[in-house]
């Protein structure tokens, strides 16, 4: 079982997503570039308070083609979506303790981009989120939310 936010974990999430989407019919062939910003909030011990873990993810036909961690926002990359939220919220989702749709509805995780596609492909979005949330057995070296009483690193 990979530790959360490690290369092995990222790879496992990618495989989980791709395996889940492969079961779907009528997946659109479109390509999307997504930025995910996990903001250290002083609660999660995995991202230092104020630090931002940034990822670029490329989805092609619903499959994760590639991903990479980046230090700074790269204005040369044309993004289709951006997901931004506090690390503790992302942790809770990855630990299957919180629901990503609830987090978006509550505004905890902000979503930017053309919502029409997300709405029209609601089933695929559900599968992607489910795979992220529940598709990988994750190890939490500093405890999983609520972090076994451990504070932020």
């Amino acid at each position, binding site marked *: 079982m990979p530790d959360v936010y490690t290369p092995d974990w990222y790879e496992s999430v990618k495989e989980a997503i791709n395996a889940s989407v492969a079961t779907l019919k009528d997946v659109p062939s479109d390509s999307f570039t997504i930025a995910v910003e996990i903001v250290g909030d002083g609660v999660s011990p995995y991202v230092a308070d104020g630090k931002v873990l940034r990822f670029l993810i490329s989805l092609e036909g619903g499959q994760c083609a590639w991903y990479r961690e980046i230090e700074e926002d790269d204005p040369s990359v044309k993004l289709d979506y951006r997901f931004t939220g506090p690390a503790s919220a992302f942790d809770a989702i990855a630990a299957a303790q919180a629901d990503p749709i609830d987090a978006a*509805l509550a505004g905890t995780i902000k979503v930017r*981009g053309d919502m029409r596609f997300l709405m029209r492909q609601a089933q695929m979005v559900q599968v992607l989120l489910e795979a992220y949330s529940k598709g990988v057995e994750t190890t939490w070296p500093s405890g999983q939310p609520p972090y076994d009483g451990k504070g932020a690193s």
Partner: protein
Amino acid sequence: MPKTTYDAIIIGAGHNGLTLGSYLARSGLEVLVLERRHEEGGGLCSEEVTQPGFVHNMHANYHTFVDMAPPVRDLDVRGHGIEYVRPEVQMASIFDDGQALTIHTDQAKTLASMARFNEEDAETFRRLYDEAHGFVDLLLGTLMYQPPMSVKELTKALATFGVEDRSEFLSVKLRRESINQFLDRHFTDPRIKAHLAFHGAVCSYTNDVKGLAIGYPLLVGKIDNWHLCLGGSHRLAHALWRDLAQHGGVMWSDAEVAKVLVDGNRAVGVRLSDGTEFEARKLVASTVSVEQTLLEFIDPGTIPDDLAQDVKTKIQHKDWTLFSVHLALDALPQYEAAAFDPDVDRAWVVNLGVDSPARLDADWEKIRRGQLVEPQPNAAVNSLYDPTDAPEGYYTGLLRQFAPFALADGGEGAWDEMGRWYGPKCIDAWRRYAPNLTDDHIVDWSVFTPHDIARKLPNMVRGDWMMGEISLDNMLDERPLPELGQYRTPVEGLYMAGSTQHPHGFITFGPGYNALQVIADDLGIEKWWARI
């Protein structure tokens, strides 16, 4: 010899036309915006109609999408010299028993005010507000600032995401409910319901119309985001015009369009009523009414007969409009209800004497029959928060009364006489709640009738300040007609970009912004504004 060829010609210099023009100019297109009136702005119209030095907003007074609408950021609206203020006490309702309910920018104060009427309702409102505030960004991005999806697509997605199970207030059944039904389902106290229904009505979401509950959570999400444009709403139009001009765009005033020139099936320019012609290399966009655009500006036979027939018979306009009284005052209203809640004297907008949604319903029934109702206007005193809109020691006032466009007795033409009678009635109604507003404190007053609205701004057909009814079958991609719901027309290169389109009127910037997305797709313009 003035330049006569542009890439894009936009008809109407209201906020949607200027917004679209500015984005296109910033994208490198040569843009001409043509305005029939002597100045830009459309509904962003501020005039000294009572006395010199008193600036009155003739139409748009409430700017509720500030910092929510992408153009405010993209076009650096604030950088062009306008200033907004968000009044601390946004709104109030004063009831006949002398009690008052106040809506504040501080949620705790709003809840405390509601709790004086009903604690359970206050707690319900807290949950509704918190939920709506959470998803307001998502809803705006999904519903307001994108070319529209269909109600069917939206409800299907909501079902797939299981929103109904996750949300106390969002539900697919809202599309079958009126705001009254929504309020009855969640609230108990008639005065709290009256205030919330009034809030919907002021936003043009009439509380008794079936299906409008679908928009109500979004209204609550911005219930405390009402902004006042300092110095008058027209300053926003100036700011947009400055942005257009700084990026090479041109605005011509006193330029009444008579024809859209069509070659084959393509819009290639416009002709003004004085015969001047302008050529459009890429597009013509109209922000005026559908009727003007498709029945007057283009020759018969240019669009399919069945569409022309639908424009004649199926465009839905609001079945009520607004009668306004603008006042110059030398005293601020001192409400008797301040004994119950002192904050009511600082409320920007006050809803007078509507104790229950049933009272509003009774008014709608009469108004739809063309009858005047016993005035229960809402009163706004901009000077409470804008010291620049009147000379020192003086204040402006605005009374708005829901009213029919055509009076049952005499039609819209009867308003010229009736307005002079009805204006004092509205002032009397205000005075019942603020007795200090005696005649000697009213320096001057002037009425602006529903008929005046239509005469001043002909695109507001029948005084329809939303430029199209707000109803379930006239929203999203059905607005104004299914064939026109995506901002394109059957004439290639001719777009609809005004408030006739989704989302609707009000200072949303939405129609112009959404038409821009479609135009950019069609012309291959890079969407530099779509900074994700």
